[in-house]
């Protein structure tokens, strides 16, 4: 009796702890949709340890039990290629979640079952959520679920994640599974391979004392035979070189006998098993009204080399129109609210001058800059997420793959690059969808050269003053210079820094679907939130630094008026640095005021104009005439080019830092400064010869 009581009390203890549930599956099977339904959209985002990829976690409380559900990146199998895939794999192997839900696409179940087998081999407690069961029916796919349950001995729950069908049953199954033992699954690889697995397992067992992986030796043996680098590394780090050597020997021996790669042989064995399952439990009848047929018909048009391209350009135009023109009043409203209303409120308060300046000029200004991005970002991400969820983005990537290939990128990179013309921040954030880290970094290096909409006011001002007749041509030439430099950057870094790691482009083309509004909204809001929190803190801190450097100088505190009084500002640290840099810009004939304005331009490119206005003691209205008297057209043009190229703005730099790390951010900024200097020099040189 006492014993029984003890066991119940420990059980309650266990139940009070939260149970980790990993949600895994192939890409495009509706993982996120299921995650959103399970967690009712209440999830938070953290970072995976050591990397900048986001980890989505949600909590579900069911009576006494609470589950911590983790949304994992999509994978096809345990061989990891991109950072996303490595994370998913690591989570399964190292954190061993108590329960794993594999979301499976019922329409092409066989391909999904490959991952199922690998998960079963890991002895994970698996539940299959058989998603899109309604679509499968329409496609004429009949699945004998009971047969599959009997064969695999794991729960399989038919669900339609988007329509919330089967979610309750899935939750019930999760609770049931907590106390159930894990099913041991063993796929027969045939006599020879099984012999090798057994031999390696025995060797591993003899060292088990040193191994604290908590995974059974059969699985480790299988992974060693499959040349799993990560597992090999685990052995190496524990000083078990002997195991690696022995398993290599056994593997080589076997390969010599089969005259074939063992890895390939093992994958084939798994597929043979899947096909035997498919023969028994999956029937395909010709479908009358099928999504596949519809998708194929639509694809005839949308992936057409000419018509498809024209449609893509129209779609992109609409996206930009929507996310920049339509929200412009909203952006303006935020701007007025912050930089006029609240700003004046603080400035006219009874706070000491320095405090009100810190609050208004530094912090509020920084917050304002961050918030001004929200309407654009939200609408842009809503559009992108919508297109992504319909399946259209995969087609756009296909259309551009050939061209992007020439730059060492896959077709997917076209979306982030084009978004760069709108705003570099969302462009850099959307490089997350690119396959590998290499592609991602390469795209991030190119994006800052895409002339964003914030650079346009600078071009407008200068062309209005100096190139009234050829305004459009001069502005277009800026965009052209940016694109050419981006291409050169791609070619340069492709050959220097990111050489030879290209993985072939293999991309799922999901059927066309109408996206769920909830999914699109959650996805977009998450991205905006990530910018607000992560990049936002960096931006506000940088604003404070710039503020301090403007109101203080070598002689000490100058007073907050320094921000608007040129005489005071000329004694600030920023001015001192600019004067120090003057010799460097001697060949350009730029005085310190231009250099200082460019420094302020780091805040946001359009700030160059307002800074020039302050430093040249001209209002923004009067600036063109002041510039006309102190600039030549050539200096003006070179300054435009320099502004285009010289550095990503603060918000972009902060985003680059959160996306690919500080090291690369510093590299990008220095690289851009060198490029800007070189190109400006070249423009002045060539221009000087012509004129």
């Amino acid at each position: 009796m006492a014993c029984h009581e003890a066991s119940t009390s420990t059980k309650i203890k266990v139940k009070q702890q939260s149970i980790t549930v990993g949600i895994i599956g192939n890409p495009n099977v509706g993982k996120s949709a299921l995650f959103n339904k399970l967690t009712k959209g209440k999830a938070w985002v953290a970072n995976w340890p050591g990397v900048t990829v986001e980890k989505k976690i949600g909590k579900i409380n069911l009576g006494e039990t609470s589950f911590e559900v983790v949304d994992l990146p999509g994978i096809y199998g345990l061989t990891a290629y991109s950072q996303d895939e490595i994370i998913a794999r690591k989570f399964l192997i190292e954190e061993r979640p108590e329960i794993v839900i594999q979301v499976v696409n019922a329409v092409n179940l066989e391909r999904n079952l490959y991952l199922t087998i690998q998960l079963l081999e890991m002895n994970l407690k698996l539940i299959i959520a058989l998603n899109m069961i309604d679509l499968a029916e329409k496609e004429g796919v009949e699945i004998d679920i009971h047969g599959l349950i009997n064969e695999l001995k794991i729960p399989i729950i038919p669900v339609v994640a988007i329509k919330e069908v089967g979610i309750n049953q899935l939750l019930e199954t999760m609770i049931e599974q907590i106390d159930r033992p894990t099913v041991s699954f063993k796929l027969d690889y045939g006599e020879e391979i099984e012999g090798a697995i057994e031999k390696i397992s025995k060797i591993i067992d003899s060292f088990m004392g040193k191994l604290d992986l908590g995974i059974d030796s059969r699985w480790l043996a299988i992974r060693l035979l499959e040349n799993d680098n990560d597992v090999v590394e685990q052995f190496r780090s524990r000083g078990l070189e002997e195991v690696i050597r022995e398993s290599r020997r056994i593997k080589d021996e076997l390969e010599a006998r089969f005259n074939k790669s063992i890895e390939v042989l093992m994958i084939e064995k798994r597929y043979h098993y899947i096909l035997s399952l498919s023969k028994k439990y999956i029937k395909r009848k010709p479908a009358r009204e099928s999504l596949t047929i519809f998708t194929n018909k639509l694809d005839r048009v949308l992936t057409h080399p000419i018509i498809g391209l024209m449609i893509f350009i129209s779609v992109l135009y609409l996206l930009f129109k929507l996310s920049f023109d339509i929200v412009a009043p909203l952006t303006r409203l935020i701007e007025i609210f912050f930089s006029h209303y609240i700003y004046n409120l603080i400035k006219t308060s009874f706070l000491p001058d320095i405090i009100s300046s810190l609050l208004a000029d530094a912090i509020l200004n920084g917050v304002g800059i961050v918030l001004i991005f929200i309407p654009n970002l939200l609408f842009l991400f809503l559009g992108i997420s919508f297109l992504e969820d319909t399946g259209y983005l995969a087609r756009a990537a296909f259309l551009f793959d050939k061209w992007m290939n020439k730059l060492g990128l896959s077709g997917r990179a076209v979306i982030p690059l084009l978004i760069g013309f709108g705003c570099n921040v969302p462009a850099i954030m959307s490089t997350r969808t690119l396959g590998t880290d290499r592609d991602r970094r390469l795209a991030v290096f190119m994006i800052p050269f895409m002339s964003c909409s914030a650079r346009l006011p600078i071009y407008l001002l200068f062309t209005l003053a100096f190139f009234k007749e050829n305004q459009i041509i001069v502005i277009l030439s800026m965009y052209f210079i940016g694109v050419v430099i981006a291409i050169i950057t791609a070619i340069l870094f492709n050959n220097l820094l990111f050489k030879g790691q290209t993985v072939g482009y293999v991309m799922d083309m999901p059927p066309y679907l109408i996206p769920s509004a909830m999914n699109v909204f959650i996805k977009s809001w998450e991205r905006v939130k990530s910018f607000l929190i992560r990049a936002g803190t960096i931006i506000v801190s940088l604003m404070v630094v710039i503020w301090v450097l403007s109101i203080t100088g070598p002689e000490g505190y100058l007073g907050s008026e320094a921000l608007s009084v040129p005489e005071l500002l000329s004694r600030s640290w920023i001015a001192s640095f600019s004067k120090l840099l003057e010799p460097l810009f001697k060949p350009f004939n730029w005085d310190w005021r231009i250099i200082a304005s460019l420094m302020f331009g780091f805040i946001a490119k359009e700030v160059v104009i307002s800074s020039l206005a302050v430093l040249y003691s001209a209002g923004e209205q009067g600036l063109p005439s002041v510039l006309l008297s102190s600039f030549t057209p050539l200096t003006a043009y070179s300054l435009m080019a320099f502004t285009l190229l010289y550095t990503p703005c603060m918000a972009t730099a902060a985003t680059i830092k959160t996306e690919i790390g500080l090291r690369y951010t510093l590299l990008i900024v220095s690289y851009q400064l060198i490029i800007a200097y070189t190109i400006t020099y070249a423009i002045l040189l060539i221009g000087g010869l012509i004129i």
Partner: protein
Amino acid sequence: MGYDVGDKPLNVSPLSNIDEGKTVKIVKIVGGRGLIKRLYEIGLLPGAEIQVLRNSKHGPVIIRNNVSGTFSLGFGVAKKIMVEVM
């Protein structure tokens, strides 16, 4: 949808050369281990029958079959998949 391996193929060419609309059977993948594994994992392994939906012959291709669903493969990948016209 059978996955027979072994029969000597008669008419083998890279997937990148196949006309749109044709159905072919994968004979061999002549790439590195990484690519082979990736393609195998999505069900594109010797013996698999695939339908070529889109192929400009100098860019990416779109293929489909019941096991894998629809995929687009880069030109470089398509060149490495040796297929037999059915």
